[in-house]
């Protein structure tokens, strides 16, 4: 393999692929990057077995071939090379990187040992505008679980929504649940509802961040694939049944509250200092949030709100409440309550796209 390419492009290729290298190595080969040179392209791939990244750049390929080298070493040298053209050549045992004046050799690993990484083929199932995909991930992913005892909940459900011909992203850790409807272009008919590790989605959001390129999505070989520009992220899927969440939606029969999001965020943040659980009192024209840690201290703060319906008191885990409030995308926030023992709803004001359902805490 002999390839030359501009340092800048090569570096960004390598740095992108490095995102897929996990520090938790189970097999040595996974600390490496697979480099392929073929038909005018240099392709770098990485995988941690859960997620893989495959990214490419145009390059002048003098001799095609492939190799695997330590991702960190390659990344470090690429970062520090001076601007200009860089030639990469794989020999018997070493990958040789040549830049103006310098020559760097990196011991190679066996490319045959590298796990197979699926190659995108055919058309996308659907396409999402990058910004809205990223914000959907941000709004829902915090509700996802990290408890490996319930594998299904460590993933986010992406299901097609035939009514709106969009998709819905849903995440829950069984204490709260967040969902977001996302508009897509193209047909969702071919999409198979699936559970994708939330970790991978967060990575997709990071990789897609910065650019506002569309995210193309498809299902191939039982894996979900996301294409963003010249890069493809492939994710293994989680097997299992996602909990039936639709029946949970609070109707807001009893009480509805509307207030400014920023105000509530500030109050909750202060209240959290004095306790994990917030006593959330809803009164005719205001809310009262109190927290206490016995023998340590307590807090009490009132905040004006538009309240319709009955007055009530309900308890929330402060962190879960804050996550929900922060995820709201509108200046005003709407909350609905049925009963102090039943789930409450936090949502965008006058919009049904984002919903956050939170199970209350029974206070003592």
């Amino acid at each position, binding site marked *: 393999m002999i390839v030359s390419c501009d340092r800048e492009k090569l570096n960004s290729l390598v740095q992108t692929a490095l995102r897929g290298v996990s520090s938790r190595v189970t097999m040595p080969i996974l600390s490496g990057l697979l480099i392929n040179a073929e038909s005018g392209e240099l392709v770098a791939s990485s995988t941690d077995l859960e997620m893989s990244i495959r990214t490419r750049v145009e390059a002048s390929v003098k001799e095609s071939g492939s190799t695997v080298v330590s991702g960190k070493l390659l990344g470090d040298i690429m970062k520090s090379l001076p601007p200009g053209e860089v030639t990469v050549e794989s020999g018997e045992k070493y990958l040789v990187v040549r830049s103006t004046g310098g020559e760097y050799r990196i011991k190679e690993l066996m490319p045959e040992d590298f796990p197979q990484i699926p190659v995108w083929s055919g058309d996308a199932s659907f396409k999402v505008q990058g910004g809205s995909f990223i914000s959907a991930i941000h709004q829902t992913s915090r509700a996802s679980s990290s408890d490996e005892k319930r594998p299904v909940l460590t993933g986010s459900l992406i299901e097609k929504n035939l009514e709106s011909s969009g998709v819905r992203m849903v995440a829950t850790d069984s204490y709260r649940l967040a969902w977001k409807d996302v508009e897509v272009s193209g047909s969702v008919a071919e999409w198979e509802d699936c559970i994708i590790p939330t970790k991978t989605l967060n990575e997709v959001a990071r990789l897609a961040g910065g650019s506002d390129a569309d995210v193309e999505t498809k299902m191939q070989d039982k894996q979900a694939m996301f294409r963003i520009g010249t890069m493809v992220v492939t994710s293994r899927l989680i097997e299992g049944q996602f909990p039936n969440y639709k029946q949970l939606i609070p109707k807001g029969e009893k009480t509805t509250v509307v207030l400014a999001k920023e105000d509530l965020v500030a109050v909750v943040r202060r209240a959290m200092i004095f306790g994990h659980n917030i006593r959330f009192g809803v009164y005719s024209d205001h809310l009262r949030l109190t927290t206490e840690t*016995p023998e340590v201290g307590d807090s009490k703060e009132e905040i004006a709100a538009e309240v319709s319906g009955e007055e009530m008191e309900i308890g929330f885990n402060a962190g879960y409440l804050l996550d929900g409030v922060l995820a709201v995308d509108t200046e005003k926030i709407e909350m609905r309550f049925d009963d102090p023992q039943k789930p409450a709803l936090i949502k965008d004001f006058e919009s049904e796209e984002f919903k956050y359902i939170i199970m209350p805490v029974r206070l003592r």
Partner: protein
Amino acid sequence: MNATKPRAILHIDMDTFFCSVERLLDPALEGRPVIVGGDPSQRGVVAACSYEARAFGVHSAMPLARAGRLCPQAVYLRGDFQAYLYYSRRVRDILCEYTPTIEPAGIDEAYLDLTGCRLAFGEPAVVVREIRARIAAELGLPASAGLSTSKVVSKVGSKVAKPNGFVEVPPGGEAGFLAPLPVEKLPGVGPVCSTTLTDLGIRTVGDLALLPPEALESVLGSWGRVLSEHARGEDRRRLEPGRAPKSVSRETTFDNDTIDYELVRCTLLLLAEKCCRALRADGLATTRIAVKLRHSDFRTYMKFRTLKVPTDQEQTVFAAAGELFEGLLERGVRIRLVGVALSGLVGAGCQGELFEGPAAGRSLKLDSLNESIDRIRERFGFSSILRGSTSELLPDRRSSLRDTIPGRLHEAASEGSAAGGGGAAVRVPQPATRSGRPPRGC
């Protein structure tokens, strides 16, 4: 301690606390017999009853069905532990205004050391009247009080003062005050002990005081000597004020180092239960669970786990503790001691779960189960109700089941200021009937 001035120890005891709170919540219960514990058609026992119900012969710990026959016209209530806890805290808030030296002795009673408050608030007796008046006015609850130079005399005093009264025993008058009272009035003298004493011809506390301490010791063990002192009104025990715990821990040293992991596991469950009960009593929940293991060669290890959702449920604590224990185990090495420590304490609350299914609602169900168990234990002591797997572990329960088997556990409890902080270990004597420990049910 003040060497010149005699001590002024107050014991304050809320009268029929559960029933009084119920009456506060529902004034219609005023004047009617009230029994807390459940419906007489259910299995269970009386947790508390009002004086009106006692007039019919109903008393605590009696099976509900029996209470139902004795006093069918009573109002039977399941009980609202949250409310009791709330009022208990409000009472404590009032007490806190007079002295920092308070030793809570359950949900409805406490000892206060008023020795040092003469300058600030005046004579102790005046303070006691003020405290009782405030509890009555601000909370609407009756309380009885005993004031003397020691815990034991004050405790007897408040018992004598009931209902809703106040007894002051002046310094020097302790023995004289106690002498005419029946021995059962002394704390720690239960039915078994009382029978033993009656057999010796002892009926009053005065009879007891006349007996040489050695004689009593030979009958009752080390407890006899303590009892003899108490009978003469001598009790130099200091108050042990409850501090805000930063951690709660319990540990157990096995009588013989063991490789019986099932025994260790059961012990962990018992320790988890005890820790969690202490948490719940303080309205706290833990976010950090630690297990401590000492091998027979005294190598000691500890492992921690942090929880996202705070818990005060032994089921959750035990699940984590079991896994931590597994991580510490060395196959074939004997274990000398195990301990459970809970830290990262926060205000309690029970996080509900969203989904239906086998696991759904489990947390809330456990919550009310634990609450009921606490309620029973509040009244009848820890070993009045035990899990199957731990029932063999407690010394007093074991010895009541099988007389001759010596207790297997020494127990040390500590509420230290840091996770796993040792604190002074309290060795609980064992077993019950042979040594100094008052038998259950006293």
